[in-house]
């Protein structure tokens, strides 16, 4: 029970919700950049939301489906198709053995997620299936997928679930329902990314603080899973200060001496010595993951309590979605 990679794509890797519990040993968290899209993809195929899936970046892979399987594709629209015909996203898809799943032009967003019912049969390293690309551990052989890789699937060949249509449309059997994903991730131009003040916010000049919350920042080409380097007004400290290294988190916005902020993301190092002007709230990290180099964002300030409220609300919504999908999937 497997999928074979006939074309690797730009950067396709196995990611779950991250490797937690080892940051004090310098082991980074990794995990899906857009965790909501991965979780929803898992719910759609009946997996635990934390199960590992494929993270597909900008140019997707071509996969030969070697056994019948139930999958779901979420995240940015990278025009997925089966045997050359477009297939819908945000729905469960039953793909018969012998089909070819491929991706085309990137229409919205930046990263797409593919889940398969039962997940991939990949061993965990340090409690996670996420790929730590630089450390060369986890995921599929500690690296991004390459041509001729064979991805083993955990579940035996699936039989078509009864809640899916009996009609093969564009090479797949699918449902007449789909997820309204807009509460979790959206693909608007120049989105507003909500932030809390960072640990060293007060060390910055008044002008820098003002510019940070008002002006657009562009995602530069030197941006990747480690972090997004932003182009915009230069941010300066009131006085030069050498800081001692300390822990950072996903969403920490640190400012090196050159004044251009870096938003730390999934593959960030565990510690850093640059001043942090802000923290992107957890709920807006998926939004950021769908912004491409060359595109711009705005930062907008919210309080800790507001950030916490929004986080708890989204978790509640995710649980409700899980219940709703269960209801329509059992017949």
């Amino acid at each position: 029970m497997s999928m074979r990679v006939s074309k690797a794509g730009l950067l396709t890797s196995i990611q779950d919700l991250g490797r937690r519990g080892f940051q004090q040993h310098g082991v980074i968290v990794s995990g899906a950049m857009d965790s909501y899209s991965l979780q929803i993809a898992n719910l759609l195929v009946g997996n635990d939301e934390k199960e590992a899936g494929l993270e597909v970046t900008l140019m997707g892979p071509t996969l030969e489906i070697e056994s019948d399987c139930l999958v779901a594709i979420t995240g940015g629209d990278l025009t997925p198709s089966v045997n050359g015909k477009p297939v819908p996203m945000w729905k469960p898809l039953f793909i018969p053995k012998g089909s070819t799943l491929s991706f085309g032009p990137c229409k919205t967003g930046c990263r797409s997620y593919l889940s398969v019912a039962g997940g991939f049969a990949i061993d965990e390293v340090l409690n996670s299936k996420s790929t730590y690309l630089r450390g060369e551990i986890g995921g599929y052989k500690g690296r991004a997928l390459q041509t001729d890789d064979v991805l083993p699937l955990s579940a035996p060949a699936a039989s078509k679930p009864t809640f899916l249509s009996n009609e093969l449309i564009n090479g797949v059997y699918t449902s007449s329902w789909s997820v309204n994903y807009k509460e979790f991730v959206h693909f608007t131009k120049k989105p507003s990314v909500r932030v809390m003040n960072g640990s060293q916010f007060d060390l910055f000049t008044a002008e820098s603080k003002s510019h940070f919350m008002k002006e657009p920042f562009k995602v530069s080409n030197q941006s990747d899973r480690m972090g997004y380097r932003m182009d915009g007004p230069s941010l300066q400290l009131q006085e030069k200060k050498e800081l001692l290294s300390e822990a950072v988190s996903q969403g920490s916005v640190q400012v090196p001496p050159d004044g251009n902020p870096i938003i730390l993301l999934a593959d960030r190092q565990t510690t850093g010595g640059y001043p942090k002007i802000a923290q992107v709230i957890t709920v807006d990290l998926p939004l950021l993951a769908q912004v491409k180099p060359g595109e711009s964002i705005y930062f907008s300030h919210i309080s800790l309590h507001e950030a916490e409220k929004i986080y708890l609300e989204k978790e509640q919504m995710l649980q409700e979605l899980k219940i709703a999908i269960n209801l329509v999937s059992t017949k």
Partner: protein
Amino acid sequence: MNQTVTKASAVISPLGDSALVITFGDSIQYDIHKQIKTCKDSIELNPFPGFVECVPAFTNLTIFYNPLEVVAAVGKKQKKEFVSPFEVVSSIIQSKLENEQTEKELNHRTVSIPVCYGGEYGPDLEYVARHHNLTPEEVISIHSEGEYLAYMIGFAPGFPFLGGLSEKIATPRRPSPRTSIPAGSVGIAGMQTGVYPISTPGGWQLIGQTPIKLFLPEQNPPSLLQAGDIVKFEPISKEEYQEILAKEGEK
């Protein structure tokens, strides 16, 4: 600003919406390190509901938590009103700090790291010697006599931030970094000394190499060194280096 000032003037502040930082001071001092280690050990011994992990650094301890689990553990009658996960965790930490006995001495493990100094293993040893008007042998002697406290692990898996380097051999970073430093390289950068557990780019002055592995992904903990360890460097010969390297390869 959401902050709580506690006994012994430790300050608790948020790091985003899913973590907080307990700051004990503002410089590298053994006493601060002791407070951090004591607090960390206490939390890890009895993790609160929602605790994920913590990361010690030079002057603070960062606690990562799951806000949903933190709130879920709070009494049911409060569910209707908003409960701030940060405030729940802060009060748990505050009680711990107030009840702490910091008079106890820390137990430090001593870890010995074998190093083959100079030659092809330490391309910058001669530069460091010249920089200080010392002979390479004197540099090796000073470096290997020192006892270094690992204040924290970060930057790369298993990479120790060691304090206690003698000023006599403290040397600035190379003006242009190397694009790749072999794993196991022992180096000096300013007042810091350390060992690269994995191959990365870097600007450190390389004075030797260790054949042993510092990052062990198949083990738990996956790092040879931990915050609080005392590290000593033990000079070995080229032959001993090859022997140990072969043994490590079999693991």
